């Protein structure tokens, strides 16, 4: 099976609003799939529905060959889906260490893995015993990715990891994501920074109005300025 | 004209319309339809509780916040009348001054509580009102020089409102001041109920309902949610105080048990839920059913307990003092299975 995640005809309502209206999406194994589109078209809701934070009203989500549409969130996580939400979901009252200990759900994080995390994000080692709430925005974002790396996951759902970060930190993030991919993980990544998307993405899916309106190779989208304009309008920063 | 009187808020159900008309006619003609001291007592209690429950519905049903201080406001009005009658002296002036100062005090207290709790989280309100109401109840029983403590206060009301004032006979019923008193209460309750209907159907009332449905969105549209919730609290408190004042005029006695007790608070909650939250008319049906049940069903329980005396355990549950046990169960079941109450059921067509 080449797709780790297959979404078919997914509908999600939030309160009385119809957010997703028939999303079809496949995420190939071991590759980075970019989920692109303007603000408010349903990218975050797609990730949250895959994670089980919102219930799907109709449609199906197949992960690793199993239908997980009705599974509770923890079961999805234990099956190997890691989630980095847009707000990072850092436990600010807990220390960096405690955040990492929690992230390693199946046991204490092993040393080799921690070394890799520290190598990717040196500040986390410095502030290991500090409360996560005292970290800077960029450091919090590092912690949120580091948490996802604390345990072997099959599929990562990552929502705008470079939002609001300084350029230097953006490249640190991109490096870390590349390393995740290098370990064989599959990634579904929402990203507004087109340069990052172009550098990381293998595939791209563009959303509009609660549906996927275009899928193809990231390189193809990156090469066609007219297509970008048509699919994503002006809100997308050109290179 | 009639539709205008009820602010265009028609019952929207034939059965409900008939029931409401029956209640209206029965209450309007109570002294003549059901002569007798006890039935007049029941009718007056029903009138006052309809108003009290309707004022609570403004808060619970229309604004979506839970208060446990409604009996405190009720009591403020009642004690206002009692204290004014004692200190100013028997007379109409005392009744008016007492009622109004009770209502103003209730609104002021509601404002303070609202400002403290509603600006943070609506759920604080439930806890804080519970704490404040019980503190006030304790205070009232401790400050017995002023409030008469647990014994309460008795006082004189204008002679025209007492049984001693005779006015002759009508339809074979002896009309006295007590009947006059009843009509004072009936008219006042009806007028205030219509006022409440007007409030919930005004633009103000619609904003309250928008807040109840989604406070976040209401705030985003530009309504000051805290202000509206606090205003609703104050209004509801002032009307509850007026209901309390009427109760005090009717009973010629106030005490913690008749006005402040937590048990009355539970009664109010039950009446709102059974009748139907957020409908106003639910208050009418809830209060009628509840007061009738309380007056007559407790006797029935006593009979049932005696009848089952030979059986084990069962009589313990049927003891009239365990009335609250059944109320509690009924309450839980209605919230689960009957959340829209009788009015909701009737309107949904069954």
């Amino acid at each position: 099976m080449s797709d780790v995640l297959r979404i078919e005809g997914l509908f999600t309502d939030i309160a009385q609003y119809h957010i997703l209206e028939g999303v079809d999406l496949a995420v190939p194994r071991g590759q980075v799939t970019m989920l692109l589109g303007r603000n408010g078209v349903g990218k975050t809701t797609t990730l949250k529905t895959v994670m089980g934070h919102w219930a799907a009203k109709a449609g199906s989500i197949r992960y690793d060959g199993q239908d997980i549409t009705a599974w509770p969130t923890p079961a999805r996580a234990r099956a190997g889906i890691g989630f980095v939400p847009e707000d990072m979901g850092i436990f600010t009252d807990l220390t960096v260490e405690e955040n990492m200990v929690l992230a390693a759900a199946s046991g204490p994080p092993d040393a080799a893995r921690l070394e890799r995390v520290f190598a990717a994000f040196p500040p986390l080692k410095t502030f290991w015993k500090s409360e996560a709430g005292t970290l800077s925005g960029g450091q919090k974002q590092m912690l949120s990715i580091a948490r996802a790396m604390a345990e072997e996951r099959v599929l990562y759902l990552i929502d705008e990891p470079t939002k609001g970060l300084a350029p230097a930190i953006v490249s640190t993030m991109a490096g870390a994501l590349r390393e995740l991919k290098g370990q064989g993980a599959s990634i579904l990544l929402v990203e507004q920074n087109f340069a990052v998307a172009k550098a990381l993405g293998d595939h791209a899916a563009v959303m509009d109005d609660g549906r996927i309106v275009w899928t193809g190779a990231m390189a193809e989208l990156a090469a066609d300025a007219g297509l970008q304009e048509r699919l994503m309008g002006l809100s997308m920063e050109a290179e | 004209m009639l539709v205008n009187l009820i602010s265009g808020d028609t019952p929207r159900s034939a059965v409900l319309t008939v029931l409401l008309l029956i209640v209206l006619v029965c209450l309007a003609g109570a002294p003549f339809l059901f002569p007798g001291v006890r039935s007049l007592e029941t009718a007056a209690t029903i009138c006052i509780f309809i108003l009290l429950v309707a004022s609570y519905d403004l808060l619970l049903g229309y604004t979506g916040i839970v208060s446990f201080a409604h009996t405190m406001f009720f009591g403020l009005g009642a004690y206002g009348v009692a204290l004014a009658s004692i200190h100013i002296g028997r007379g109409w002036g005392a009744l008016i001054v007492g009622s109004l100062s009770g209502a103003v005090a209730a609104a002021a207290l509601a404002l303070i509580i609202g400002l403290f709790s509603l600006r943070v989280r609506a759920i604080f309100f439930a806890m804080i009102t519970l704490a404040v109401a019980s503190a006030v109840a304790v205070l009232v029983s401790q400050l017995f020089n002023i409030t008469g403590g647990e014994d309460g206060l008795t006082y004189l009301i204008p002679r025209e409102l007492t049984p001693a004032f005779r006015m002759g006979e009508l339809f074979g019923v002896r009309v006295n001041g007590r009947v006059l008193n009843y009509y004072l209460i009936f008219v006042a309750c009806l007028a205030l109920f219509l006022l409440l209907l007007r409030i919930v159907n005004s633009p103000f009332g619609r904003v309250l309902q928008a807040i109840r449905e989604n406070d976040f969105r209401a705030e985003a549209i530009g309504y000051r949610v805290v202000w509206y919730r606090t205003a609703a609290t104050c209004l509801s408190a002032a009307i509850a105080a007026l209901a309390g004042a009427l109760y005090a005029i009717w009973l010629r006695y106030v005490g913690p048990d008749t006005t402040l007790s937590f048990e009355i608070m539970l009664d109010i909650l039950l009446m709102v839920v059974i009748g139907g939250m957020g409908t106003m008319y639910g208050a009418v049906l809830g209060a009628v059913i509840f007061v009738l049940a309380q007056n007559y069903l407790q006797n029935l329980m006593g009979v049932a307990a005696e009848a089952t005396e030979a059986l084990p355990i069962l009589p313990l549950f049927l003891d009239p003092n365990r009335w609250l046990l059944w109320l509690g169960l009924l309450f839980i079941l209605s919230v689960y299975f009957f959340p829209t109450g009788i009015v909701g059921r009737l309107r949904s067509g069954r």
Partner: protein
Amino acid sequence: MSAAPDHAPTMTRASFAHRLGQAAPYLLVPVLIVLGFLSIGSSSSWLTLTVSGLAMGMMIFVMASGLTLVFGLMDVINFGHGAFVSLGAFVGISVLLALTGWTTAPSLFLNLAAVLLAIAAAMVLTGLVGWGFERVIVRPVYGAHLKQILVTVGGLIVVEQLIHVIWGPDEIFLNRPETLKGAVTFAGAALEKYRILAVVLGLAIFVAMRLVLRRTKIGLIVRAGVQNGQMVESLGYRLRLVFIGVFVAGSALAGLGGVMWGLYQEVITAGMGERMMILVFIVVIIGGLGSVEGAFIGALLVGLLQNYIAFLAPKLALVSNIGLMAAILMWRPQGMMPVVKAK
């Protein structure tokens, strides 16, 4: 509703003012004790009142701790929590009455054994009833505060009435175990033995709870869950099970608080839990919903203030706590140690 902007742009050492702000709640307790000393004058009465205030505070804390965590974890506000206090008291005191031989013997060992047995029985039973309460009463109304308040109030009434059915309509008077009667004299002040025991017991529970919350994985999950439950689930933890565990533990602690309170008052009534809930709510609110430390400090403040005021101006005792609540909410509208919600 209020999205707190949490921007600490650089990693600097927390400023003095910031740290003082964090420590301020802890400082309130000694400040209150000193103020009590100044206004009472007589050092022996002050010592007596302080010990009984601390004892009362500890007992309130034991009752409040579960409630605040349950709220923090699942946003569930349980107005029926007081039912567990009453139920615990009746079960525990029944056990003590059944063990009259042990409680009247002048042996500290037998007395304590009886008390511990009573506590164990009360905690097991209230824990079980808490489990049932969560399943039957609370679970169907998750996410709906209005219904939660209504239904849990209904549950409170039903449990209270069932206590009447089982134990009869009257209050039950009791005597403390033989060796826990009377007082010891220290620095000229008479300190009731039982109150000292209550302080020790309450402190032990607070320390144990803190250890669990700080040092164990389950504690980490609870603390993280209070902040951001959805993220905890996204990491693979079944927060629902953790919540049920906390609910049961909180109910058992309320039952324990009921036994302690019953022994303190030497009389128990079905309505005692309902009455205690008023203080418990005040404590939970001023502590900051979801915060165990906040509840602890709040409980001590309430206990101490209540005892000092009861001595200085008896009629104002309960009202003084309302005043305390108002003052603290003016200072910090979310309570002394609000939990930073990730929303």
